[in-house]
């Protein structure tokens, strides 16, 4: 056993579009996680993953991405809302793995140019998360009118988001620690 192993909570930037403002939100989340002791993180950009789009499952896996997800204790998914849904590439990338997600925590950050802050993309992602074996937390972060929340350099201009992000991460870390214990020590069917 290695009790000193830090939690690993990568942030997945879930859109490949040019000019994506979700990138600022994802970088903010990464930076906020990095401030937490005992937690390490990194940004995973779906646009940078060499995953083919004409295949699926094990044969389409990117080994480096799968390794990161395998060692992850939780995920933060930053997802813009496109026509009330999630980006197609995000779903394709997520679908290349399965066992790597099982009994791990996930928090979703919704991003939109409108006033709903990605609420609908979050609702659409939740059943996908469940089927992947991820455990959703009850906090979300919603970047409403994202174009007004960051300046051109990507700096947050509305600091009222920080307390909400802190609550989101408090819950995510709690769930990550609890599920790590469960994955390590609680055997399925062990009490039957």
């Amino acid at each position: 056993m290695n009790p000193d192993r830090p939690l690993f909570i990568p942030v997945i930037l879930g859109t490949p579009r040019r000019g994506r403002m979700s990138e600022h939100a994802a970088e903010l989340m990464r930076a906020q996680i990095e401030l937490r002791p005992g937690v390490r993180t990194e940004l995973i950009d779906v646009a940078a993953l060499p995953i083919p789009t004409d295949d699926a499952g094990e044969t389409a896996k990117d080994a480096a991405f799968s390794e990161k997800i395998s060692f992850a204790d939780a995920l933060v998914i930053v997802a813009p809302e496109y026509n009330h849904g999630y980006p197609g590439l995000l779903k394709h990338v997520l679908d290349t793995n399965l066992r790597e997600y099982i009994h791990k925590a996930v928090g979703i950050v919704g991003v939109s140019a409108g006033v709903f802050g990605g609420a609908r993309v979050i609702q659409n992602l939740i059943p996908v998360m469940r089927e992947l074996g991820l455990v959703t937390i009850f906090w979300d972060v919603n970047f409403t009118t994202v174009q007004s929340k960051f300046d051109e350099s990507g700096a947050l201009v509305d600091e009222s988001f920080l307390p909400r992000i802190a609550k989101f991460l408090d819950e995510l870390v709690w769930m990550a620690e609890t599920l790590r214990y469960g994955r390590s020590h609680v055997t399925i069917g062990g009490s039957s």
Partner: protein
Amino acid sequence: MTCPRCGYHPMNHQADKLTYPVTREEAESITSVMDGVIEEVFSCPNCGWIESRRPDPNGST
């Protein structure tokens, strides 16, 4: 199962996940009750690595 990354033994059998078939062979093995294929998922208590395997058809794990 022994962790292929750090050698810790035993990994913890933490889940049985129903997975959906990708290949024709897998699709032919599903039944109307088990609408997919069971995958046994193991976690390494030492390094955190995740592994999985199909159950032993003879019943032992």
